[in-house]
């Protein structure tokens, strides 16, 4: 167990690699109760979120649809990344990271000034993520008939309140599955029933290797308040139109875009050794840094994400244990739905 920002969390329950494979090949579950759930409600909830977030919640028109976005500071740095679920224009649910809980809540409250909106942390909830090709099938065994009906045919990136559970087709692994929000008092019983349905418990270690294979950013590693979303493979989450939507950080972002920024790329090393966060990167275009690196259990070799000059070529050199090693540059996505995308 480790102290993860005040939460006692396991790195692994048994073998981290077996837990990883369970999610790629069958079904695994993560206790992600540390995530911060905040409901945003009120007549100006939509206006508030359109001001707060770089992505535009006005794009959400269907009930339950979710959106990934960065929340930026005025300098265009990333305060946090989050998922927002839309119920209607006066009612949203936002899920932010635990590491950034206090500063996020302060920021959410500070930015709410002048908007007719309530920002309500929902600390009475726990969250369990069930992920993998057989995750849905196994989760359905513990759902009531009403819950099964509520999620039947639900597309990716949606959420629905179904009786006592909020069930969303979101995740952090690159596999199908659910993230389930449940009352704390019922969480252990739900975990136990998922266990009996054959879902394997997985720790933070597997969560990290799975998200990295899927090319998903980890806040605090791949980006933070000093890093532009444009340099963190989050350009696609910025909604520039309409031009008059003056979201927090927009001015700084426009300037960064005009001047150009570094970019986040994927690295692949098929030789022995493991790329690790913090290792120095160099190429003809300049210097960079490995932001996340690991051994990929699915691919059988090391992969990483690195922030490098935009003019980077097909290879870079990484300093590993005092030697400079040449590795390939790829798009920052390695595995989806159990298969290599390299």
């Amino acid at each position, binding site marked *: 167990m480790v102290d993860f920002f005040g939460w006692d969390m396991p*790195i692994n329950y048994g*073998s*981290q*690699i077996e837990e990883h494979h369970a999610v790629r090949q069958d079904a695994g579950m993560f206790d992600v109760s540390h995530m911060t759930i905040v409901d945003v409600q009120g007549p100006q909830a939509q206006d508030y979120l359109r001001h707060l977030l770089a992505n535009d919640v006005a794009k959400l028109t269907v009930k339950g649809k979710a959106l990934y976005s960065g929340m930026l500071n005025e300098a265009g740095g990333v305060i946090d990344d989050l998922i927002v679920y839309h119920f209607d224009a006066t009612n949203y649910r936002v899920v932010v990271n635990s590491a950034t809980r206090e500063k996020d809540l302060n920021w959410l409250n500070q930015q709410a000034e002048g908007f007719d909106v309530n920002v309500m942390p929902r600390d009475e909830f726990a969250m369990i993520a069930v992920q993998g090709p057989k995750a849905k099938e196994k989760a359905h065994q513990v759902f009531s008939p009403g819950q099964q009906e509520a999620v039947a045919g639900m597309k990716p990136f949606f959420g629905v309140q179904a009786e006592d559970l909020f069930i969303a087709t979101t995740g952090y692994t690159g596999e199908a599955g659910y993230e389930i929000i449940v009352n704390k008092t019922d969480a252990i019983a739900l975990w136990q029933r998922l266990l009996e349905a054959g879902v394997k418990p997985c720790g933070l270690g597997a969560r990290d290797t799975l998200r990295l294979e899927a090319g998903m950013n980890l806040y605090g590693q791949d980006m933070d308040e000093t890093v532009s979303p444009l340099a963190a493979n989050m350009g696609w989450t910025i909604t520039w139109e309409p031009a008059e939507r003056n979201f927090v950080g927009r001015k700084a972002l426009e300037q960064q875009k005009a001047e150009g920024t570094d970019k986040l790329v994927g690295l692949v090393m098929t030789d022995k*050794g*493991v790329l*690790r966060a913090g290792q120095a990167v160099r190429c003809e275009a300049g210097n960079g840094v490995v932001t996340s690196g690991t*051994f990929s259990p699915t691919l059988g070799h090391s992969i990483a994400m690195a922030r490098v000059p935009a003019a980077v070529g097909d290879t870079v050199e990484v300093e590993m244990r005092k030697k400079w090693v040449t590795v390939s540059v790829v798009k920052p996505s390695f595995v989806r739905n159990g298969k290599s995308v390299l």
Partner: protein
Amino acid sequence: MSNIPKELRYTATHEWVRPEGDGVFTVGITEHAQDLLGDMVFVELPDVGDEVSTGDDIVVAESVKAASDVYAPISGEILAVNEELEDSPELVNSDPFGDGWMFKIKAEDASEVESLLDAEGYEESIDED
């Protein structure tokens, strides 16, 4: 509680040493060490014939969590390395005192082993961690 076989000698840096006779010793890392490191993904072994001195970092044990050095517990010549670890580094996790051995060393001075920790001493050293 970690398994610490009585018949082996240990270092404070978590290597174990087993006498094979004729001044030859087999070396690996302890169950406690593999537990700290987590799933092993690569093991870089020395070359057979290498002359090593006590405390040299001669193996890199790379796990899902970190790259760790394994040190020569005594001085001598590397007689053999465990080539099975090339394809099956997980043997270090599943059988650290057996199939997960790393190298065999011909001691320059076999009495050097007497100065290593016994099982009790090693257990005390990891309790202090």
